């Protein structure tokens, strides 16, 4: 057994960086703060890789099962003798995998940001926020119990809020940050209720105890209390899933994610592509054995919300013209994949669990690659809109190649990383839920289409384009992470993932079925071909297709009017039916009572203030009268 004493350094380094840079960086070492932050996160990344090495390679699986380790575990709040909240670090295959992903992507984003954010007046503040986010995310993935995960869950929400609203002089950024915070907070309310129900039912908040208690046969036999026809466990899991869906932008709580693209692009790459948005997937994966209890029904909610979000977001992504929004919807779609991959799994068929985690792993690399590439494109053309782009491949050669690799990876073309993970997901769906499989197949075609629509419209389309104010592709600090991530987008697929991560923590085997892969790959290639035909050169084929599907296109372009629906519900329904009556009661009854009391007090004191006349003899008279009065009362009582 290896020594994991250094493990708490991994989150401590970024929080130390946050405190140091946040307090002193802006004033004393503004130019150095970027590299200091990078150094700290780099150390964390090295430690995480070392942890992974120790955990998976040196220690390995004992008797075929990877252990769940608790290198740090302290009691924090004790409620009763049996129920307490701990603070700890839990190491098991998924948390170690997430450690590597989070620190690594964060490191890449830090390096990239030193170039991308250069010249910003709040350069140091930006890095302080990035450090805070990284700390919170690391805390989240290493949490040993539900309450701890909830604390860090809120912390990532706060840092996401701060970073989306980083350009706080832009009203749209402020609105987006508020929207993101409120929507996720709304979902977190359900999460908290779910945590409390789980804690009370399982008599513990620790993941290991929850899983052990809730899946034990005695518990399943005895605990049959139901509410509205569903068992308590189902309710708790669905509520926890709603929290996860809020963070992971699952329908219908996805509305904040596209708007969150108002933040600086590195932030989108780190938070809204690779790490924070997969927190929901991670949460479901953490509690997977409980979700997988047969007959709970919660797992089906996960599956169907996941697949619906995947398809829904893919449709919208096909119509958007803001390149970051396309990527945002693509992220939502890919997270939908991860969700339904968990949803189609069960204890017996846990291939989906592995595939989901694998997709999370590969997606982190290629999606942050795509976002960082998009950042360079935006840097070059000073616009987010693909109408202003086209023919950029000559200007941005490295971005072009790496972006292409990212697109191929997400489209699931072999041998890029996305191919392996997506095949795993589709295969898992095919074996248990064929209906989901067919929808997922269509979605993967759409994925290929919209990604290559994006690719061709940025880098091809217009034959000759003249860029104003073009000053090179960008510093090496920006191109270097692209190259690293592009390499990983190819290499990550060859990791024998099932060997390390399975639902039961055993050593599994990943097998790629060549015959099975034909259909998804063909669908993907078809999507690419259509995108190529429509968008490679300037032509009106795409416009004709749009004209043919006018209604569908408009609906998808307006994001299926979900935002409008939200506005309608909040502004018209909630505002008029709840807000206004509540305001009326507040103004007239609550305030009215207080105002009446104040008014009466004023009136009374006004009428009796004459008693305080300033005449000493008058006071003496009152005093004497009082004494006489008291005397009479005493006499009356005693006589």
């Amino acid at each position, binding site marked *: 057994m290896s020594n994991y004493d250094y493990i708490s350094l991994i989150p401590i380094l970024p929080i130390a960086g946050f405190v140091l840079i946040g307090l002193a960086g802006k004033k004393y070492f503004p130019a150095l703060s970027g590299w200091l932050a990078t150094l700290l996160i780099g150390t964390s990344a090295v430690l995480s890789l070392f942890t992974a090495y120790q955990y998976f390679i040196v220690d390995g699986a004992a008797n075929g099962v990877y252990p769940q380790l608790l290198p740090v575990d302290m009691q924090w709040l004790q409620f009763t003798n049996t129920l307490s909240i701990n603070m700890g670090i839990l190491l098991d295959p998924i948390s170690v995998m997430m450690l590597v992903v989070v620190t690594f992507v964060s490191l890449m984003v830090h390096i990239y940001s030193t170039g991308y954010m250069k010249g910003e007046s709040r350069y140091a503040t930006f890095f302080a926020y990035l450090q805070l986010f990284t700390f919170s995310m690391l805390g989240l993935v290493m949490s040993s119990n539900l309450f701890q995960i909830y604390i860090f869950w809120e912390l990532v929400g706060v840092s996401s809020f701060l970073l989306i609203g980083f350009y706080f002089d832009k009203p749209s950024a402020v609105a987006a940050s508020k929207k993101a915070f409120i929507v996720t907070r709304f979902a977190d309310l359900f999460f908290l209720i779910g945590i409390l129900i789980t804690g009370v039912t399982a008599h513990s908040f620790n993941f290991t105890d929850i899983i052990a208690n809730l899946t034990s046969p005695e518990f399943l036999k005895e605990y049959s209390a139901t509410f509205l026809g569903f068992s308590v466990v189902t309710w708790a899991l669905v509520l926890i899933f709603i929290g996860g869906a809020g963070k992971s932008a699952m329908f219908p709580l996805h509305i904040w994610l596209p708007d969150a693209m108002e933040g600086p692009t590195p932030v989108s790459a780190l938070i809204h592509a690779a790490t924070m948005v997969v927190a929901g997937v991670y949460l479901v994966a953490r509690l997977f054995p409980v979700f997988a209890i047969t007959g709970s029904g919660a797992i089906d909610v996960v599956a169907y919300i996941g697949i619906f979000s995947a398809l829904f977001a893919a449709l919208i992504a096909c119509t958007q013209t803001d390149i970051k929004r396309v990527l945002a919807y693509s992220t939502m779609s890919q997270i939908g994949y991860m969700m339904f991959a968990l949803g189609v799994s069960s204890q017996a068929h846990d291939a989906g669990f592995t595939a989901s985690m694998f997709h999370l792993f590969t997606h982190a690399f290629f999606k942050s690659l795509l976002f960082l590439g998009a950042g360079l494109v935006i840097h070059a053309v000073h616009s987010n809109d693909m109408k202003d782009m086209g023919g950029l491949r000559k200007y941005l050669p490295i971005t072009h190649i790496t972006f292409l690799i990212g697109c191929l990876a997400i489209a699931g073309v072999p041998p890029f990383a996305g191919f392996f993970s997506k095949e795993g997901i589709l295969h898992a769906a095919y074996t248990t839920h064929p209906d989901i499989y067919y929808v997922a197949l269509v979605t993967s075609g759409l994925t290929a289409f919209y990604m290559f629509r994006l690719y061709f419209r940025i880098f091809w389309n217009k034959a000759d384009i003249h860029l104003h104010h073009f000053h090179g592709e960008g510093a090496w600090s920006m191109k270097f992470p692209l190259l690293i991530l592009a390499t990983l987008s190819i290499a990550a697929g060859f990791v024998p993932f099932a060997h390390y991560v399975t639902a039961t923590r055993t050593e599994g085997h990943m097998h790629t079925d060549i015959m099975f892969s034909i259909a998804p790959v063909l669908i993907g290639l078809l999507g690419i071909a259509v995108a190529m035909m429509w968008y490679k050169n300037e032509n009106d084929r795409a416009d004709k297709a749009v004209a043919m599907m006018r209604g569908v296109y408009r609906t998808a372009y307006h994001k299926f009017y979900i935002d409008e629906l939200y506005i309608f519900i909040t502004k018209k329904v909630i505002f008029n039916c709840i807000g206004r009556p509540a305001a009326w009661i507040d103004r007239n009854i609550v305030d009215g009572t207080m105002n009446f009391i104040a008014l009466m007090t004023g009136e009374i004191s006004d009428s009796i*203030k*004459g008693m*305080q*006349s*300033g*005449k*000493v*003899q008058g006071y*003496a*008279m009152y005093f*004497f009268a009082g004494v006489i009065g008291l005397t009479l009362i005493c006499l009356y009582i005693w006589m």
Partner: protein
Amino acid sequence: MNNIGIEQILFISTALFFIGVYGLFTRRNMITMLMAVELILNSVNINFVSFNKYLYPERLDGVFFTIFIIAIAAAEAAVAIAIIINIYRNHQSIDVEDSEEMKY
């Protein structure tokens, strides 16, 4: 001396008390009011001494209280006269009706 009953003494002290109260309420000159207060205090002193003498002749509590009151009355008179002098400096008058700024 012995044929004077406690009733007569109490009658005198009560009369003295109400004379004092009457003076306090009707006089406008502060010095006179102070004198009226002295009357009230001394009526109380008479009560103390007489109750001590007639009810508990073996004890001296009432007499000692009286001595305390005389001492405190002297101090009180000093303070009161100091106040009155200051009021006179401000108002050029010791009429109590002239100093009534401290009101609502």
